């Protein structure tokens, strides 16, 4: 990935495309956790792609790319939330019918559903994006201790949902 980032910084559109495609799983999981709607997630991700391209020259250290990109994506998701003023309390999320075309994502959606909203993003950034607690804290503007607490509670919720234990 480091090579792709360097080439993208030099204006190589193909390298940039490959780089962002490699991050699509991460971006979709984050956006979907925050926005709960594929249309809004699509907007957030496409906007993130354009902003990352525009700002690639400002990324000085290639090893910071994932955190930098994640921060941009979360900002875009928050912008969409503000614009649409939508709030999705956990209790209002519909059960995912098994007959949906998104059948392959049912397990993932069920995993997300068992997590409180404020634990969801922290869990994704930790387990999916591979950020450490300090990095998550800097992205979400919360103390690392809060990150650790939310991770612990998120793990408990998943364990309780799937195993009946914590």
């Amino acid at each position, binding site marked *: 990935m480091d090579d792709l980032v360097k080439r993208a910084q030099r204006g190589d559109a193909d390298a940039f495309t490959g780089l962002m495609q490699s991050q699509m799983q991460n971006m979709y999981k984050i956006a979907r956790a925050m926005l709960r709607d594929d249309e809004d*997630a699509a907007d957030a991700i496409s906007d993130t792609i354009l902003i990352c391209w525009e700002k690639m020259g400002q990324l000085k250290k290639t090893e910071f790319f994932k955190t930098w990109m994640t921060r941009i994506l979360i900002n875009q998701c928050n912008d969409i939330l503000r614009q649409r003023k939508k709030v999705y309390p956990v209790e209002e999320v519909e059960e995912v019918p098994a007959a949906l075309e998104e059948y392959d994502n049912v397990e993932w959606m069920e995993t997300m559903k068992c997590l409180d909203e404020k634990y969801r993003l922290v869990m994704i950034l930790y387990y999916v994006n591979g950020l450490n607690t300090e990095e998550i804290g800097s992205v979400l503007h919360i103390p690392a201790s809060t990150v650790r607490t939310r991770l612990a509670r998120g793990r408990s919720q998943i364990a309780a949902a799937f195993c009946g234990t914590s």
Partner: protein
Amino acid sequence: MREKDIMEKMQSEVIIPDVVQERAELAFEKIRKKEGKVMKMRSKKRRWKTMWIAVAAAVFVLGTMTVCAAYLRWSRGLEAGFDATEEQKQLLEEEQYTAPLNNESSGNEENGNDGGDSGNSGGNGNSVTVQGVTIAPQQSIVDSRFAWLSFKVEGYDLEEGKEPCFQYTTVTVEGDEEAVISYYGSFYNGIHSDAEGRPVYEDGSPADGEIFVNDDGSMEYIITVDATQYGENGLIGKNVHVEFTDLGTAYKAEYFPDLEAVWAFDFTLKGSDKVRKLNLSEPLGDSAATVIYAEISPVSIYVNYDFPMREEAIEGIGENGEPITSTTFVEAPSVVGVRLKNGTLLPYITNGGVEGYLDESQEVYTCSYALDRILDTAQVDALLFLKNSPSGEGGLTEDDLYIVPIE
């Protein structure tokens, strides 16, 4: 439930919905269509595969002004961008790398106040005012390979949350539009890098959001020019013409117009060609590269390697999303920083430049990079080259570097 089970659930692959993939493809298509224009303005690093790159050239004039160099008022963006201490500012002033920028253009008189929407129609001789927006050259920093030019922009009412942008910035050297330089310009956003390479504001606090407008309502535009391939001594003493065309805002790789106008300047650039020259013969581990020559100025590093060209295949994605394979050359370990005599490692100090083969023999590989800080070259006792990219954000350690002593 075990941590491993939780990780498996969180990392399970999902199907990316069509709407998400399609909208992403639209974004990639937009980028490819704009690639030519965007690259010219926004790419900081430019690799060359052939000898020459056709880019507009810039001329900077410092000729007419008599200046007490020790008391140069530094531009905010250049001072922050180089993280310059008073001692370092004085070093550059005394060694004549930096000076005020003085506009020698006669465009003000020729175009006059014709009330038109473009052309220089006012100013105080150094600055240019068009449509109520005044652009004043401030300061330049110039060595034998790079140049930085700072301009103050006043009178533009920037909407909050927007990023200012000129639609075009062109730089021409000695009237030659084919002159081999590359350049990058942007409005200063209040953010620079700390010693670890992380984005921070001028007060050192973590940066989260760009700040383009100063307390006095002005903005600053900085152009960085890479003249590595232009010739001996780069742009020093050369006539440079700079034009800014149309002013608006940029968002998501798109320009949104606001003012139609042209601000034009002419300069003769003054700077210093003083460098610390090093003749070396240092192999870089098992990379097949040997460092043979280097030049260090307070604001740039230039390195030659003996590194015969080898090609490698790169997998990528084509215009229609299909996998493609292209060929490029293997890169030599890049120079990334220096070690000082007191043992301090500075591994994150390069800030844009070029690397590749200097001539058609493709035997000598060159790295030429601007720096993001001012060096006292006499205090440098080793050059640092990248061996391994660090995993995560832990930063480079000695194990990730080839360290080449120069004393």
